[in-house]
């Protein structure tokens, strides 16, 4: 039964490991968390979930799995000899006990039938009308653990009180939500690449000691350069039009990135990248810089991050003259490929919810152009993006002679 619960959790995408499951069993065999389902809930959460942003999902799975089985759980503790709980060491069952279990059709079978019966009874009793169906709360499509929707917060039912996990108190902590500056900073921090280059002007104490010891006690001073975050980031923001809805989110990302990276360069574009980008949005028509210059100016060490909703007419990406603002000699896709050839480490962050990605043709096209290196502008998305940034893209060869 517990193993079943464990696989349930795995299926829901919760990162629970075998070690942790064994820990849970070990705890149960020490009578921790066995008194009632509430205690078990707390103990299981303590053992299995190591991130408060996963609490909410755990609550949902717990509810989904144990709804209607509470009685089964209590029964399993009351009516059964204590030894049975020590399932961790299966051999501990005596022959008599084993026979007893077998005569009831096996432990799992027994519990299953009981649980099913209980559930049926409940459904009938309530006519099924009190349950609330939702399509899950994760807007970013993390696989969703039940496509049919999850039952949440079912109240009442044989006079029992609402359980802790049904209250879903940790909903706000779900990691798939969009977050503030601080959380962005934490996510961006993993892009750090600490290196020592430049003038050696700091005393390397350990090095000095080692060198001095090797020198039989004669002082040999070692200097080294300070540790600096050497990662270079180039941000290209989409502004105007449909991006206006995402302004606040982009602002947060920008201010987080500004404080986190010393070498941060940023430019704006509208809808898609063509031959020009600009630094100052007020003077965007006079004060532009060509993408060729961008490529010449910034080395290929720069990590290139596009931020845009990628929502536009497909022509704006693939066709010459497709831009809504000017006549572009070459299609945006070609410019995108040039950028990719130079800046191999590139990703696209999309503030649009990933639910809409498949249904918006331009997002599909750009995602293909980016070779799936498109992520949502959420903390999880940024984490994935940064992981991806570590490996360069394999750009397709340009067909023309550029």
């Amino acid at each position, binding site marked *: 039964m517990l193993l079943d619960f464990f696989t349930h959790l795995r299926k829901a995408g919760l990162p629970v490991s075998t070690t942790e499951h064994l820990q849970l069993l070990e705890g149960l065999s020490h009578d921790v968390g066995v008194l009632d389902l509430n205690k078990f809930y707390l103990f299981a959460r303590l053992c299995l979930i*190591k991130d*408060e942003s996963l609490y909410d999902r755990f609550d949902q799975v717990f509810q989904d799995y144990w709804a209607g089985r509470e009685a089964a759980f209590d029964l399993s503790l009351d009516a059964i000899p204590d030894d049975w709980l020590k399932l961790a060491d299966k051999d501990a069952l005596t022959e008599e006990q084993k026979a007893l279990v077998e005569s009831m059709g096996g432990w799992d079978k027994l519990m299953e039938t009981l649980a099913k019966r209980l559930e049926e009874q409940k459904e009938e009793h309530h006519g099924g009308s009190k349950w609330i169906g939702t399509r899950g709360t994760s807007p970013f499509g993390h696989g969703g653990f039940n496509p049919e929707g999850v039952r949440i917060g079912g109240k009442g039912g044989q006079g029992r009180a609402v359980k802790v996990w049904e209250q879903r108190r940790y909903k706000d902590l779900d990691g798939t939500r969009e977050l503030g500056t601080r959380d962005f900073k934490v996510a961006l921090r993993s892009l750090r690449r600490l290196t020592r280059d430049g003038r050696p002007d700091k005393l390397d104490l350990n090095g000095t000691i080692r060198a001095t010891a090797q020198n039989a006690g004669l002082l040999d001073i070692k200097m080294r350069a300070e540790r600096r975050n050497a990662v270079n980031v180039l941000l290209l923001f989409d502004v105007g039009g449909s991006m206006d809805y995402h302004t606040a989110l982009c602002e947060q990302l920008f201010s987080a990135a500004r404080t986190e990276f010393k070498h941060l360069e940023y430019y704006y574009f509208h809808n898609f990248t063509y031959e020009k980008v600009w630094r100052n949005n007020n003077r965007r028509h006079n004060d532009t810089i060509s993408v060729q210059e961008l490529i010449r100016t910034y080395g290929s060490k720069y990590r290139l991050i596009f931020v845009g909703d990628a929502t536009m007419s497909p022509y704006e990406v693939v066709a010459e003259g497709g831009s809504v603002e000017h006549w572009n000699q070459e299609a945006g896709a070609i410019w995108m490929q040039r950028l990719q050839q130079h800046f191999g480490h590139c990703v696209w962050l999309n503030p649009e919810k990933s639910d809409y990605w498949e249904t918006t043709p331009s997002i599909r096209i750009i995602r293909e152009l980016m070779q799936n290196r498109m992520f949502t502008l959420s903390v999880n998305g940024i984490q994935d993006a940064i992981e991806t940034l570590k490996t360069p893209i394999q750009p397709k060869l340009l067909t023309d002679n550029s």
Partner: protein
Amino acid sequence: MSNPDYIITDELQQAVDAALTLERPLLVKGEPGTGKTQLAIEIAQRLDAPLFQWHVKSTTRAHQGLYEYDAVSRLRDSQLGDDRVNNISNYILHGVLWDAFTCDQRAVVLIDEIDKADIEFPNDLLQELDRMSFNVYETRETITAKQRPLVIITSNNEKELPDAFLRRCFFHYIEFPDKPTMAKIIAAHYPTVKQDLLKSAMDVFFDLRDVPGLKKKPSTSELLDWLKLLIADDLPAEALGADELRTILPQMHGALLKNEQDVHLFERLIFLHKQRQR
């Protein structure tokens, strides 16, 4: 023996009990000001066990918690011809974990703000926390825990902790106290506070936490500070503006709102309330 000021919720109690029974490190996270650090001190007091505190900084290295070899002193002594120099163990400085491991009774170890340290820090402690033993390279001895200490680790979420480390810990997230718990906490600190003042203060406080867009939400310790000020000045409950209308900035709000944007935001909200009233 125990400090009646510290209120432990049932959930937390159970988490601590489990960590004690199964002898596993307990990782505690939670909003600032929810008493994460205090928890270890409290447990040590209640168990009547010695407490070893290790406050982690950005420069802290894992081996500093085990031991440090003081090469500089040894070098100095060797040049001065001190006799101590012949025994290397004179220059091994014991770290927090060493002391805790060699303690005669079960100790409580607090590793405070583990996320402040380098990313590799937790990984470097895996073996030590798992087996509760480590090798001293210089003297070739092995230090093993006489009794596995209870390890409490706090984190403020500034860095992700590695999975391998998390797997070995129990994890508990201290929630922000709800109103009844908060009332208990306040009663423990200020048993003589006037009921009407307390009620208005709590209302203002929880409303303030609900204001969307605040840069920094006030925490428990800030509420306690604020109450202290209010009690010291013997203010009436009306001065807090806790009536239905919320039309004045609460007295001594500086204890709760810690940056000027938040104060501005709050002033704007009050302004809106006033307008609606007309």
